[in-house]
């Protein structure tokens, strides 16, 4: 300590706030006045958005179904076991959504499929998020030649249509659920690089970053404690919206026969398998299709709601 702390003046007369607590009580102060996190205020904003709430409710139901599915249904007997005698039955009391061409109960499969579709969507986006945000944030923060190279790379990546990119990647890696996730992830990395970079660029020039530098916060710590948390909003919005499109992309790949391998009840594969029966047995595609639609819709509603809630433009 170079300076004596006691040099600090005691409360001045000019203080405009009444200091009501004595120093002995001070120890408790930070706990007495509960902090409300910024997420709480986002939640307050979000709560006003009925669409987002509807989306949230739907999504919670879908996640609930996904979590409950393995408890309610046995994978080996209810989900993948063939029952040829009961195939292609229309919806009934026994089979709420009917049965598919292998005689499997579509309701059970749709429920179970939520696990796959959500997992594919979420993992693919996580993949894109981790890579995109790392490189994008680094590009925005470091700048210079590195940024230049990253952005060129990003341009190149995004000039190849994402479906084709995903198909190429699946072909390269082989068909499996994990590879599907990676393929969809790779194809949606570029937007994350862009968003993260833009967010970091915006934040990087804020005065509080300079302030942190002025109080000698090490650079890495500035990135971790100041830049990243403040760049998160657009990234979170982007991620929410991308999960939806990742689910659609996965379904598209399944349609082209490059999706989750059978007999796993992924919605896209179900849609793809059922599409040949669409004329007479449309329930086979109707329910997985609706499931995809509702899930993507709910994610988009939430994403749009989050965007509105996080967007400073819409406040005040």
């Amino acid at each position: 300590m170079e300076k004596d702390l006691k040099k600090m003046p005691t409360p001045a007369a000019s203080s405009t706030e009444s200091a009501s607590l004595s120093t002995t009580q001070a120890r408790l102060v930070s706990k007495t006045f509960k902090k409300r996190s910024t997420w709480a205020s986002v939640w307050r904003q979000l709560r006003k958005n009925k669409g987002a709430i509807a989306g949230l409710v739907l999504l919670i139901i879908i996640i609930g179904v996904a979590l409950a599915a393995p408890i309610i249904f046995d994978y080996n007997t209810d989900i993948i076991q063939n029952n040829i005698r009961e195939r292609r039955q229309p919806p009934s009391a026994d089979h709420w959504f009917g049965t598919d061409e292998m005689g499997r109960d579509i309701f059970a499969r749709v429920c179970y499929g939520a696990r796959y579709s959500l997992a594919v969507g979420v993992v693919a986006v996580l993949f894109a998020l981790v890579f995109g945000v790392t490189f994008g944030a680094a590009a925005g923060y470091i700048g210079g030649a590195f940024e230049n190279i990253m952005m060129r790379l990003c341009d190149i990546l995004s000039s190849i249509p994402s479906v084709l990119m995903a198909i190429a990647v699946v072909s390269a890696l082989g068909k499996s659920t994990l590879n599907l996730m990676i393929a969809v992830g790779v194809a949606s990395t570029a937007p994350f690089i862009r968003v993260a970079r833009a967010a970091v660029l915006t934040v990087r020039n804020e005065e509080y970053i300079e302030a942190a530098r002025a109080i000698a916060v090490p650079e890495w710590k500035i990135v971790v404690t100041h830049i990243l948390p403040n760049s998160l909003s657009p990234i979170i919005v982007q991620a929410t919206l991308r999960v939806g499109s990742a689910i659609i992309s996965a379904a598209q790949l399944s349609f082209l026969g490059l999706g989750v391998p059978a007999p796993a009840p992924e919605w896209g594969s179900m849609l793809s398998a059922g599409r040949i029966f669409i004329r007479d047995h449309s329930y086979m595609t109707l329910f997985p299709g609706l499931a995809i639609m509702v899930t993507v819709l709910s994610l988009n509603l939430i994403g749009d709601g989050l965007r509105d809630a996080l967007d400073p433009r819409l406040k005040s």
Partner: protein
Amino acid sequence: MSRYIVERLLMLIPVLLSVAFIIFAIMNAAEGDPVYSVVSADATQEQIEAARIELGLDGTLIQRYFRYVGGMIKGDLGTSYVSKRDVMQTYMMRLPNTLKLAAASMVVALVISIPLGIIAAVNQNSIRDAVSMVLALLGLSMPNFWLGLLLILLFSLRLGWFPSAGYEDGLRSIILPAITNGTGLAAFMTRATRSSMLDVVRQDFLRTARAKGVTERKVIRKHALRNALIPIITVFGVQFSNVLGGSVLVETVFAWPGVGRLVVDAIEQRDIPTVTGALVMTTMLVTITNLLIDIVYAYVDPRIKSQYAKKGFKLWKRT
């Protein structure tokens, strides 16, 4: 401005080389030796080797890449392993279809999204906003191949209004694919329009316009929309680029012989020259589209125009 354009076009060269390399690398990593798509199932080892050399599949990836690039510089995109046709020629046969579909899809998307987006923004947080956005989102949430099948069932089979496949029936053939494609795109553009309009309707200059006595209708149509166009054009550009190569599923469902299908089939057959060539061409188109979009910006927004004029070329836009 012309300097800007020339420099942007020059930048195409490294981009195309990189795209070619990426595709080369990916296709090389792919399971399944491309040579098998060419030889018969019971070919002997020697035959396979002979075919390999004939196809130019010998040597390391790098050697092959440089061989390919050597041809690319001369405008030769190689010959398809499978059909033995010139890739450029094959691509050019598909391109008009793709362009037609892309253009029609964008028209559908624009017709849907601009009014919806404006209605949503001008009536923010009202019922009309909610309905517009949900409509837009529905288009996005429906897997488009499914929508395509449903449209075929209804409009081709039941009602017989439009053909279900092919492209020879002029406007009638393009309507269903364009709707299928366009509704998905419309979602993004409605969103962009809405958020861009929301940005603009809060701007001070609209207040200036109102204070001058400009009617509300004209304030939105003339003063606001023109300013809102920039982000809309960006999204338009991105979407257009995407449909230039990426409407594989719609092309499949409607038997629309476009570029996307060409690439997918070629990927399946490990037809590396076709995949690489078509994607290089697509990249070029996309880049040129982006350039055109940038030029359109300049006409919509004079600020950007003077930026181009002042700076000439800048590697990347920092904002």
